[in-house]
């Protein structure tokens, strides 16, 4: 076997697999969304946009991402800074912080359901403290905003870990000399964080924000577990059109909307947080 062919041979299975199960379905999803069997049509998009639920669905998803991602970024920065400063018990704390990384969004939804449902732990606490007289129905359709808050909490709880892991590994790459130099010049811890950590962390921030924002647009099981279909989101509606309304074409149109906002977000991050050439560590 010629040596030159070996790397290609090793890459062949992965490449073929991604072509069949990644690139081809993308073409297919566009075909589903834009055709009615024979010819090009925008009918499915018109059906989607014309449905009364669409505006709420779209803005719920955007708003959730716009609230969840910044909170996660701040919390992950705090957690990562704590981890970096720890001397004893670093591994234990790190393991605890990363636990939610391994949990599914459905499990996270069920966990927060245990807290927010009517006979749940939040009501138990509120009643025993005498703040309310009888348990409140938090997750009913009368107060969608409570469902919204519960989803935000569950998402922040579940997916901050992934941001933190990326930031911790990024912080590990920042040379100690930079901090020592900053200290020599009398920079306070806050200034060191602002002037050294944040700029040096730019590549990690970019990765983390792209991954998290895309995942935030995909929010689904958490919302279903906490609010059923009361709080419609894009993936939930995709599922709804696929199964309950049995219209895979409109479902594909929804999928393309999610894809479009994901790509838009990625491009924005790549542009805003671009790393100047030659400025990497």
């Amino acid at each position, binding site marked *: 076997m010629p040596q030159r062919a070996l*790397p290609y041979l090793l*890459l062949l299975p992965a490449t073929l697999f991604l072509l069949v199960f990644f690139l081809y379905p993308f073409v*297919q999803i566009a075909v589903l969304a834009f055709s009615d069997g024979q010819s090009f049509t925008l009918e499915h998009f018109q059906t989607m946009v014309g449905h009364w639920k669409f505006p709420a669905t779209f803005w719920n998803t955007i708003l959730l991402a716009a609230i969840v991602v910044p909170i996660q970024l701040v919390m992950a920065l705090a957690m990562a800074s704590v981890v970096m400063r720890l001397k004893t018990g670093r591994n234990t704390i790190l393991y605890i912080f990363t636990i939610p990384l391994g949990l599914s969004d459905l*499990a996270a939804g069920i966990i927060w359901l245990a807290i927010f449902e009517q006979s749940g732990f939040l009501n138990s606490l509120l009643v025993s403290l005498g703040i309310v007289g009888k348990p409140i129905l938090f997750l009913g359709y009368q107060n969608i905003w409570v469902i919204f808050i519960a989803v935000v909490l569950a998402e922040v709880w579940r997916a901050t870990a992934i941001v933190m892991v990326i930031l911790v590994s990024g912080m*590990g790459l920042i040379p100690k000399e930079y901090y020592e130099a900053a200290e020599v010049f009398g920079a306070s811890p806050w200034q060191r964080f602002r002037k050294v950590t944040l700029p040096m962390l730019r590549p990690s921030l970019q990765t983390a924000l792209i991954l998290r924002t895309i995942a935030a647009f995909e929010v689904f099981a958490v919302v279903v577990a906490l609010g059923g279909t009361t709080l419609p989101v894009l993936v939930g509606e995709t599922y709804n059109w696929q199964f309950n309304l049995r219209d895979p074409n409109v479902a594909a149109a929804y999928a393309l909307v999610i894809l479009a906002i994901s790509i838009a977000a990625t491009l924005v991050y790549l542009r805003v947080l671009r790393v100047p050439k030659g400025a990497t560590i």
Partner: protein
Amino acid sequence: MTDVASNDQPQAVAEVSRAGRFVFVAGTVLMCAWVLVPIYLLLVNALSSPAQVTGFPKTGLPGFDFGSLQFFIGFSGVAKALWNSVLVAVLTMVFAIGIGAPAGYALSRFDFPGKSAFRLLVLMTRAFPLPLLALPIAVMFIQVGLDDTPIGLALVHTTLAIPFAVLITFSIFSGIPVELEEAAWTLGCNRAQAFQRVVLPLVLPGIAASAIFAFTISWNEVFAASVLTVQNRTLTAFLLQSLNVSPLHLKFAGGAALVVPALLFIFAVRKYLFAMWGIANR
């Protein structure tokens, strides 16, 4: 600072740093509690009887009653869903490592035209909402007879797991000095023998970790599983589709069944989490 104050100054600084230390420790404890308490509350519910789960007010202590869990295990469809979840996850693990590890090895050991194109393809998969691909794949599977099979779902989950498998194995192979392999070649091994006798024993723990990670990805996935399975539902698909009809204690027991294995998996791979995200930054 005046000279008079200089006497007290060290004490003041010590006090400030003690206060800072206290805030730091309190903050750390608070963050740990933020992560752990919700999980604890779920386990409390899972370890209580159905009556205790719907009872009010809650004490926050488990009843150590296995009624909910027994009901969950005995509930029609649960045993099969659990089995399907394990089966799909094992298949995903095998596919992801079988396909991803050779690619990781090639990326770490060779320089060749097209290398950056392949890396781009792998990184691209992470910038897309992959589970949505289940929609066209569902159509594709009906045509080839893979619909509603564990293998079909495992193939989709493999798409999710492959980028991680490639990147983790790449970083693991990169950690093995190429000189070790070269030494084996000079001692008369060919490439395959050198790989098997020298590299493989060294990378096995890392490969195992990335296999477990692939397992976890499949175990946790909800959307594709719900779209692609009807009769052969996995545990996540089963729980999702019965959410609006199932009683609370079934949900919580099911949630615990999802969470507890995941806790163990993450514990097993904790050392490697950073290796793979560190490399993902470049």
